[in-house]
């Protein structure tokens, strides 16, 4: 229209329709009437679909929309307490990042933060902790930050508009698994014109949406009041952060990682003095995230390299969540925060010490009288001061205390101490009956000291316990005890009453013998418990202890053949092998053979009593007994885990009675069925609760109590579709995992699954290049990532790469680029190629303009589907977009095959009918100077 009017050379005033007044009313009325008179509106039901095809289309569209919504459910294997969520605050310089962190910290903890250095951990709610990190502005820092961010707050200067940093960071985030993102507009007080402000907000919002998704949250901070953001707005922002959910990202759930919030150089000073550039030993502290960390795992320190861990220790949480009491909100005392790099927070926990930071002028160290204590001071007391005071209040020193607690220590620590011997037979004495306690005390004390000191079970712990404390006396005791026990076995039950199948026999015997049998049974129980340890030792133990136990076994064997309980778990072949070659020490060239049964030593299965003994293992036998075999053991293991401390005579009795129950009742099956039913329901309820939780509608507590009826039906109703089934399977697996792992005691658990996520860990790494210390900058966060299976190897990776559309030039083959894959960043020279139709990889000299191509480069391998990001220049002072390409790993090879098309120019020297010899094609002085070309007949 404008064009037209321009052409006419005349501008007409556009018609402005009435919005109010009589004529406008008339118009709207007419419009309404018109609509009302429409047939469709009067009976909408009658006109649902007119066309069959349209209905089909609509339906398929609806179905497709639903399917698009679904994502493959990801298993979240972090159980228990979650680590703090990392909130990365990112933005171009001078946009107000530090100020935002300061005001947020102020909002949460009421502390003023002088400057922001390193991660700052705060308790933000009853169930939630946050860790604020300011993202440095260099590209390396941005890449690292994107790898550990759970939430990225992108600060944008509203008065200026978007800057390159924001888009760069968004691209980095997208490549490394897209965490949650929230935009924050600042500097909005620079707008004087309200309309312009509104327009700008709108514009920026829509630009932001195109980058992320429609409806992505963009938060507005209207301006500064007294150099701070308005309280109300910060409160709202905190509210947004607190309700945010963080979906697990696949790379991170499969790799352990730490955001280092404390970093120390522990190199011996002499070494540094000798050579200031020597390799250093460092300790790194941080919360473990991602997945569990095992002791043998290698780690990658971003920007430094791969290292094996010299030591891992679990420390007590420096910023713990408040105790789970029923109350609303947080008390002031619980609003902890921890920022060692900023030099704040009162406590510093080390492996073997706690440092307390006390402001000198406020503290009176000497004891004050209880009465005369200044009451007004009471309120101001520092945490650190409290601790010092409480230390002063201690009446007796620790060593005295230890002596006093001798006996209680023994029984309490029993489980733990058993673990400590995991590999070697040190603590056999503990498992003996009570009359040995006195003898074992001295040893126990020394052991306990160790344990108390390093309750964290580091490597050193293992070493200190191994071997050295094994005194001959203990061994002697052990043997004699063993003998005693087996003798008693013989006395109290001659013959084979105690073979496993005959529960009836056992019962009758117990009834008859009363007390004695009970006592005996508990002994047997204990013996079987001991077997457990022996078994673990036998498999994993050191050769010394294994041979020790094995000799015992041999002795037992010769003494009585009948007591099945004793030797059940030692395979015959194994025993023979032990006695012959001392296992492990002797023959290292044993034949590799999986079959072990010897045909020569067989029972005579033709005899009736022999084959009747396994009758119940067949369907022709007693089904109830056969079923019992499974159930009883399950129930038993469960029971076993509940009462835990078997050394205690009382529990032993209890245990025994339970067993009697099992065996005596004819219809125990009913009971067992009940137990199973109950367990199943419990599981169901848990699952249902999870489902409800997952869907967003938090189910109230009582609902879980409704077990049988409605709940069960609902879960069945849920069973529609593959997706739900998948989700359910995952949930079930998770429940099983939790249940099974909770069965174990702490130390075994640590052994089995490693350090759990959410723990505060201290990693010791040796031989780190000194530059890490030299150029350490607390503002540049350190990322420590665990290396997964097969990721430490190097080879050629094939990636599907696309040049970033904002990068101005195409990329050239063999131009060095810096790539970021997984935790690593390194420089490499890619070779670009494209796959021809016949499957050949043809080399390209330059990347295609708007297409994906293959890039092959050498480097540490990353699993397929890992995102790759490439930059060419790390410097900060370039205006252009720094990210040159994005890619993902297709596969890796040790060797790759890329072919190159070459053109050779030469001169014919001899020409025959169908053949010509060409010379001067190659410049090398090898003998072969020409090429024979043959023309093919068509």
């Amino acid at each position: 229209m404008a064009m037209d009017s321009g052409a006419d050379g005349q501008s007409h005033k556009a018609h402005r329709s009435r919005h109010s007044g009589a004529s406008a009313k008339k118009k709207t009325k007419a419009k309404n009437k018109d609509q009302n008179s429409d047939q469709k509106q009067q009976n909408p039901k009658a006109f649902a679909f007119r066309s069959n095809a349209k209905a089909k289309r609509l339906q398929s569209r609806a179905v497709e929309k639903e399917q698009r919504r679904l994502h493959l459910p990801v298993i979240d294997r972090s159980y228990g307490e979650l680590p703090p969520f990392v909130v990365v605050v990112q933005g171009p310089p001078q946009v107000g990042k530090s100020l935002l962190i300061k005001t947020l910290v102020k909002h949460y903890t009421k502390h003023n933060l002088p400057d922001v250095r390193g991660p700052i951990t705060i308790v933000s709610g009853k169930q939630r902790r946050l860790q604020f990190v300011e993202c440095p502005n260099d590209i390396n820092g941005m890449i690292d930050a994107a790898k550990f961010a759970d939430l990225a707050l992108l600060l944008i200067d509203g008065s200026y508009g978007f800057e390159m940093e924001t888009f760069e960071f968004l691209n980095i985030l997208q490549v490394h698994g897209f965490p949650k993102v929230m935009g924050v507009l600042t500097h909005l007080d620079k707008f004087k014109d309200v309309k312009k402000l509104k327009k700008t907000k709108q514009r920026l919002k829509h630009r932001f949406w195109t980058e992320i998704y429609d409806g992505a949250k963009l938060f507005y901070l209207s301006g500064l009041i007294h150099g701070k953001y308005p309280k109300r707005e910060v409160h709202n922002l905190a509210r947004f952060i607190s309700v945010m959910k963080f979906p697990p990202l696949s790379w991170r759930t499969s790799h352990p990682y730490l955001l280092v919030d404390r970093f120390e150089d522990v190199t011996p000073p002499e070494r540094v003095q000798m050579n200031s550039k020597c390799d250093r030993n460092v300790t790194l502290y941080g919360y473990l995230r991602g997945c569990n960390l095992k002791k043998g795992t290698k780690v990658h320190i971003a920007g430094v390299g791969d290292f094996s861990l010299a030591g891992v220790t679990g420390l007590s949480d420096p910023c713990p969540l408040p105790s789970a009491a029923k109350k609303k909100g947080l008390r002031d005392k619980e609003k902890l925060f921890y920022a060692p790099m900023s030099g704040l927070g009162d406590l510093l926990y080390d492996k073997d010490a706690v440092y307390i930071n006390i402001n000198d002028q406020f503290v009176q160290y000497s004891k004050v009288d209880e009465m005369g204590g200044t009451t007004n001071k009471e309120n101001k007391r520092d945490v650190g001061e409290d601790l010092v005071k409480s230390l002063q209040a201690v009446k007796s020193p620790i060593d005295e205390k230890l002596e006093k607690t001798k006996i209680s220590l023994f029984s309490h620590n029993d489980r733990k101490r058993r673990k400590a011997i995991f590999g070697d037979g040190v603590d056999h004495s503990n498992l003996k009956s009570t009359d040995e306690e006195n003898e074992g005390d001295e040893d126990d004390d020394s052991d306990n000291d160790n344990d108390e000191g390093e309750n964290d079970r580091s490597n050193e712990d293992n070493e200190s316990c191994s071997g050295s404390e094994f005194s001959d006396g203990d061994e002697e005791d052990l043997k004699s005890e063993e003998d005693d026990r087996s003798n008693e076995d013989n006395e109290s039950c001659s013959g084979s009453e105690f073979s496993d199948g005959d529960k009836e026999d056992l019962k009758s015997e117990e009834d008859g013998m009363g007390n004695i049998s009970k006592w005996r049974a508990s002994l047997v129980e204990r013996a079987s418990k001991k077997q457990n340890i022996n078994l673990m030792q036998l498999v994993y133990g050191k050769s010394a202890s294994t041979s020790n136990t094995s000799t015992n076994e041999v002795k037992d064997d010769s003494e009585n053949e009948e007591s099945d309980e004793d030797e059940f778990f030692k395979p015959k072949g194994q025993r023979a092998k032990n006695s012959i070659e001392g296992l492990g020490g002797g023959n290292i060239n044993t034949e590799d053979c999986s079959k072990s049964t010897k045909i020569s030593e067989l029972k005579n299965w033709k005899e009736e009593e022999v084959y009747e003994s396994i009758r119940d293992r067949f369907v022709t036998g007693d089904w109830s007994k056969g079923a019992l075999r499974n159930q009883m053991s399950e129930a038993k293991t469960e029971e076993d885990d509940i009462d835990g401390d078997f050394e205690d005579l009382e529990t032993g009795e209890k245990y025994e009675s339970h067993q009697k129950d099992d065996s005596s009742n004819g219809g125990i099956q009913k009971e067992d069925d009940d137990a199973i039913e109950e367990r199943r329901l419990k599981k169901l309820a848990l699952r249902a609760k999870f489902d409800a939780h997952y869907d967003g509608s938090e189910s109230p507590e009582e609902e879980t109590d409704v077990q049988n009826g409605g709940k069960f039906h609902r879960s069945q109703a849920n069973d529609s579709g593959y997706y739900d089934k998948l989700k359910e399977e995952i949930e079930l697996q998770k429940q099983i995992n939790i249940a099974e792992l909770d069965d174990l005691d702490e130390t075994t658990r640590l052994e089995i699954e490693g350090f759990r996520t959410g723990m505060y860990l201290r990693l010791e790494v040796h031989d780190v290049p000194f530059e890490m210390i030299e150029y350490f900058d607390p503002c540049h966060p350190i990322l420590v990532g665990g290396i997964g299976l097969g990721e430490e190897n190097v080879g050629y990776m094939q990636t599907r790469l696309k040049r970033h559309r904002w990068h101005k030039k195409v990329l050239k083959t063999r131009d060095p680029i810096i790539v970021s894959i997984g935790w690593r960043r390194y420089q490499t020279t890619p070779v670009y190629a494209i796959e021809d139709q016949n499957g050949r990889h043809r080399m390209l000299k330059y990347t295609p303009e708007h297409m994906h191509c293959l890039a092959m480069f050498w480097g540490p391998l990353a699993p397929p589907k890992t995102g790759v990001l490439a930059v060419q220049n790390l410097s900060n002072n370039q205006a252009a977009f720094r990210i040159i390409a994005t890619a993902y790993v297709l596969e890796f090879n040790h060797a790759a095959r890329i072919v190159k098309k070459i053109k050779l120019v030469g001169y014919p020297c001899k020409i025959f009918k169908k053949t010509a010899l060409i010379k001067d094609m190659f410049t090398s002085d090898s003998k072969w100077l020409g090429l024979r070309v043959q023309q093919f007949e068509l």
Partner: protein
Amino acid sequence: MGKITYKRLKGSQNMRQRLLLATLKSTPVLIEDIHAGDTLPGLRPHEISLLRLFEKLTDDCLIEINETGTKLKYKPGIIVGGSHLVHDCGFSRAIGYFLEPLILLGLFARKTLVIILKGITNDSKDPSVDTFRSTAFPLLRHFGVPSEGLKLEIKSRGVSPHGGGEVHLTIPTVQHLTATMWTDEGMVKRIRGEAFTTRVSVQLGNEMIYAARGIFNRLLPDVYIASDYRKRLEAGNSPGYGISLVAETTSGCCISADTTVSYPRGDEEEDIEDEGKKELIPAADVGEKLASVLLEEIEKGGVVDSTHQGLLFLLCALCPKDVSKVRVGKLSPYGIETLREIRDFLDVQFVIKPDPSTGTVILKCWGSGMKNLSRKTT
């Protein structure tokens, strides 16, 4: 980065598990003192053959053996797999020896593995190929391996000393295994089996079947033992006979036993020639003995027999990071060795808890999180 650090090991024991785990985890290993004290030092023929097999399946692996064969350097490559592969297993060990690591390797390969293995199919030392089909494959199914792709065809049978057997093996690839809770052993509902003869009278096979049935019939009516009597080309180069039995339980566990009777191998032959040809064990006795072996395995309990314990533990350890729980009878020496190797290579420890009431052992482990990294993404 450029320097390779080798994991140092000693002796030829557990060569199969060591090489397998090293390949799966891609840790370079250096094994020293291989049969160093023997009169004939160095790697045995079957061990060399195993190395060749690994070389065939992987891409760019590096194997270095010193002159005496007592030292082996192995840097694993990427497991490729692929079809149209042929491997001659030699005569010193049976195909079963090679199959055990091969089926695990095949699962984590890039492409579906189709391989022809030639050599001794049935042997008394190693599980026979029939057992693999009847027991090991159902075992894999418990860990989420699709049963459609698993295939083992016995083209011809061969027994020691001269072999001549041939099997065609197909193993699909998986992205990852699935953890299992497998403690219900159930009750034996049927017994199946296969008796074979090569280059001997068919009557021997029938005798074995008859004798074995005689033992089982008192316990279970559902016993069916098939007969597989090979002739001419399909019968390999040496005479022999054997039987393989498998008991299936109500909960889907398979417990197997097998044996083979044939003339011993070349190196042992010389001693025997003095006494003339040694008599083979009568067929009826073989059937009876093996039935007893199977019953003994059943008596021990557990979800697998003692022969398959190692395979079971390896599968558990290679699961994703979930808890697996299995029940076995007495731990076999091979099982124990496997547990140790798993700890050394994969850093996975099992919690071993005896269950005194049944005389079985319950093992729990937290999988290593193994994934098939060599599979190409599209």
